[in-house]
């Protein structure tokens, strides 16, 4: 993936990665596009659910404890150079992204194995579909 630095002088603060990795592609294409009811024969639902799950922010006690920890680690940086907090945040972001990709990939695997064949017949597409995403 080509990632331009967003710290180049004279503008260039806008980060413009080329969306080429699987995670980017999944984020861009899944759960999008015209939905043609009768023809959707993959267990796309499995993928959709996992994708959406990965986006849910769980406001649990654990989450709060992580926020607190992050806030308290701020002190380390104020006192001594900043390395510890940077590392901590880097780790958090890394593990977060890793989970997301894994979830989506296993979703794809699940779709592959659970081939629901109850849709072998072809019916005309319908214009109105409950699965069409409403747009703002």
């Amino acid at each position, binding site marked *: 993936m080509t990632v331009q630095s967003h710290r180049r002088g004279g503008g260039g603060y806008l980060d413009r990665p080329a969306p080429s990795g699987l995670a980017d592609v999944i984020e861009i294409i899944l759960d999008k596009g015209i939905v043609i009811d009768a023809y959707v024969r993959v*267990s796309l639902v499995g993928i959709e659910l996992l994708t959406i799950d990965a986006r849910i922010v769980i406001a649990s006690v654990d989450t709060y404890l992580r926020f607190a920890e992050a806030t308290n680690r701020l002190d380390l940086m104020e006192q001594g150079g900043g390395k510890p907090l940077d590392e901590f945040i880097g780790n958090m972001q890394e593990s*977060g992204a890793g989970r997301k990709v894994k979830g989506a990939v296993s979703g794809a695997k699940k779709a592959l194995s659970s081939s629901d064949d109850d849709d072998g017949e072809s019916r005309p597409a319908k214009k109105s579909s409950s699965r069409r995403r409403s747009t703002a």
Partner: protein
Amino acid sequence: MTPTSVAHEDVMDLGTTDADLGWFVYAVVDADSRIPDDLTGLDDQPVQAVAYGRVAAVVSRFRLERPPGRSADLLAFHRVVDGLADALESVVPVSFGSVVLDQEGIRDELLAPNEGWFGELVDSVRGRVQLIVQANYDQDALLREVVAADPEIARLRELTRDLPEGAARAELVRLGELVGAAVEHRRGEDADALLEDILPLTVAHVLRPASGLERVLDVALLVDSAQRDELENRLEVLAEEVHDRVQLRLLGPTAPYDFAGEV
């Protein structure tokens, strides 16, 4: 243009009989669209257009026995749809995983009953592209703001920061709760401010669900090609203005995946 003829010889070596093959559908385009010759889809099958009236479906042969969903399939789908978007004036992506059983079905069951609707969709995105803007907080700067702005947060931090692990759990949870709420409040204000700057240069937008402590905004924008430069310049300026606390990312242009349902 006449419908592209779909001959049996087009089938590449899929090691299976015709009855086991269906058609994977990528997108709906104008009937007179010229599909790039070198475009290959899932399983490296050649991509072709099947036209009916004013619209055409872009399809490739596909083995019915295996549901698509491997990562290579997703990447191939993305390659085809965005390849079309690069080459054509108007491309409406079809949801990944859509398969029609036979060639007649593409015309008689997919295109014929939906020609009007598909035509409107194709018109609605003509000459337009999708861009995705994502804004993320610099966590460090965000937490500094939050601590500085709320005496109670500062107090709880003083109280809990040097205690051994496992101590003052209630206070830690309370601290995290307050930090979470403060971030949520800021997120709303910052997202609104960014949108206010960006949306006047767009035709439509779709907010995508935001997640995590650091995400401020994730929005898909439908943009007239003629306004794309102006929007990108605006985003560059914005990115510089906010870079101390927020990083802006721009993805795309892509095919209008988020606007395929809007007429």
